């Protein structure tokens, strides 16, 4: 198998990964980015696909333009970019790749920066596996990058700034959004004040949010606050979505159900960090209350507990593109400094201003997180027949049959029920199963990620299997 050596390898080509690679490369490190998708940009800076033509660059929106500028910088720098490439494992600072053709199957780095981002936080409810139920992020990508409208009667459910932004953006691009259902209350004067006071660095985000709200108001898109999803009904396709009111105690109030006709339901209850590689390589993990998951511990310079392994962006905690950019720059600077390419004085001068900026962003994030929590109701929606593990079709009833004393932790559940053993490797059922075992409020891990962290061709991992090219493995 071919291997290649680099000073710094960045896994993930979103805002965090690109800004990290730029700093490392500019300081003189030989640098590479590994990106699973066909183009750089990630979820934060979704791009117009290669093959489509931009006719009016001046009329592209802010995120696409910011992404294009950053991608151009990466191309102007001496950064090697491996696109369409899954990083399936991390051993020390060696990155295992699903290689194509003559591309290397392993990148041996002195330092690795994990910037693998996040994905839509799964909420398990009856009907969530029906075609027509999409994550809000998925629907957003489909319309924004591909120009495909996901349905003819779209109901948006979820909470937080992304629900607002995606609803307005989908509607303004011609998607028939007929209802927006937010599980949080409409921010009152107190919440608004807290947001405004913490938005020193993020005033533009507040203005953007207000713009989305004003848009939805002006188009008279019906909105419901303090309402959670209860279920989606339909046979082989979505026919309706049922929501219900959340009381002051955060529980669903019986008798308040409303059923809305729809063919498409977009679900956006925040994001879940993609921290698998950091767990595979043994980075110490800390509990993140807002996403209810373990995330890699990192110091002020974005170093994890493992030598040579750094992190940046949403895979450490959900912060959005601005935080990802700042953390990426910081991680790149730290990698350069630790490699002896940046002296102490220069590093201190640059990193201190980044750390200062980050603290201000994160103060705003903390307020946002406190305004848009996901309550315990989200774990109580599944019924006996509800599929929890989508890959292996494991239902709540199947999980209930796997009881102590034989089944005590997520690994036992996996072994006895096959939940979490499928293609997505527990990314969609792990949080729910974790919560079933732990109960509310307990810091408790989900499934232990195993390499390959994404299904990869065995021929890309072991040469002797090259003739088995059509056999994916888990």
């Amino acid at each position, binding site marked *: 198998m071919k291997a290649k050596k680099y000073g710094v390898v960045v896994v993930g080509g979103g805002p965090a990964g690109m800004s990290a690679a730029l700093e490392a490369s500019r300081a003189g490190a030989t640098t590479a980015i590994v990106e*699973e*998708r*066909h183009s750089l940009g990630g*979820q934060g800076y979704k791009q*117009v*696909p*290669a*093959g*489509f*033509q*931009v*006719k*009016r660059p001046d*009329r*592209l929106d802010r995120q696409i333009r910011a992404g294009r500028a950053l991608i151009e910088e990466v191309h102007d720098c001496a950064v090697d970019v491996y696109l369409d490439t899954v990083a399936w494992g991390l051993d020390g600072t060696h990155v295992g790749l699903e290689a194509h053709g003559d591309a290397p199957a392993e990148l041996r780095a002195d330092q690795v920066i994990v910037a693998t981002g996040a*994905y*839509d936080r799964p909420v398990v409810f*009856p*009907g*969530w*596996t*029906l*075609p*027509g*139920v*999409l*994550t809000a*992020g*998925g*629907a957003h*990508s*489909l*319309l924004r990058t*591909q*120009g*495909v*409208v*996901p349905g003819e009667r779209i109901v948006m459910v979820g909470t937080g700034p992304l629900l607002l932004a995606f609803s307005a953006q989908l509607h303004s*691009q*011609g*998607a028939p959004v007929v209802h927006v259902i937010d599980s949080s209350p409409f921010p009152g004067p107190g919440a608004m004040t807290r947001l405004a006071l913490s938005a020193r660095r993020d005033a533009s985000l507040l203005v953007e949010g207000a713009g989305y709200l004003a848009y939805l108001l002006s188009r008279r898109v019906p909105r419901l606050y303090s309402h959670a999803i209860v279920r989606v009904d339909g*046979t*082989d*396709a979505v026919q309706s979505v049922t929501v219900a009111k959340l009381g002051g105690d955060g529980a669903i109030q019986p008798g308040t159900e409303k059923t809305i006709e729809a063919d498409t339901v977009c679900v956006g209850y925040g994001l879940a960090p*993609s921290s698998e590689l950091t767990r595979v390589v043994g980075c110490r993990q800390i509990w993140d209350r807002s996403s209810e998951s373990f995330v890699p511990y990192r110091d002020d310079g974005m170093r994890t507990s493992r030598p040579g392994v750094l992190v940046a962006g949403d895979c450490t905690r959900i912060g959005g593109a601005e935080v990802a950019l700042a953390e990426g720059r910081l991680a790149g600077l730290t990698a350069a400094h630790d490699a002896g390419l940046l002296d102490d004085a220069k590093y201190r001068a640059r990193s201190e201003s980044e750390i200062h900026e980050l603290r201000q962003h994160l103060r705003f994030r903390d307020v946002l997180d406190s305004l848009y929590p996901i309550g315990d109701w989200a774990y109580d929606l599944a019924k006996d*027949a*509800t*599929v929890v593990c*989508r*890959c*292996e*079709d494991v239902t709540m009833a199947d999980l209930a049959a796997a009881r102590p004393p034989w089944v005590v932790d997520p690994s036992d559940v996996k072994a006895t029920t096959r939940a979490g053993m*499928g*293609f*997505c490797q527990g*990314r*969609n059922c792990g949080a729910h199963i974790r919560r079933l075992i732990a109960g509310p409020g307990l810091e408790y891990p989900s499934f232990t990620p195993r390499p390959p962290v994404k*299904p990869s061709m065995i021929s890309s991992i072991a040469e002797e299997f090259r003739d088995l090219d*059509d056999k*994916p493995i888990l």
Partner: protein
Amino acid sequence: MSASDDRGDRFRSSFRGVVERGSPVTLRVDGVELRGYAGETVAAAMMAAGIRSFRRSVRDHVRGVYCGMGVCYECLVDVDGQRNVRACMTYVADGMTVERPGMGRSTAAERPDGERP
């Protein structure tokens, strides 16, 4: 499922003239011709044609695009004979053949165990 262009265009936005799609390509989904455009994913081209059902799961439930970003593996289809390809991460090409695993079989309603989520 229909290959008619107006149906496909109903689900395609105009990008308000800011972006133009790539050149048209033809793919076959379960033997039926479908219009796509260079730069589109297989998932996008199928959804633009009004296809929501992509495959049947291990217990025979119909599944479609869920995460749209390569995480959930719900949109797995067979592309040009290659099994288990993520439709949301794969780009269309002229002459591409796509098979939806299990979708040729009888519907859930016709099965004795017709269990629904």
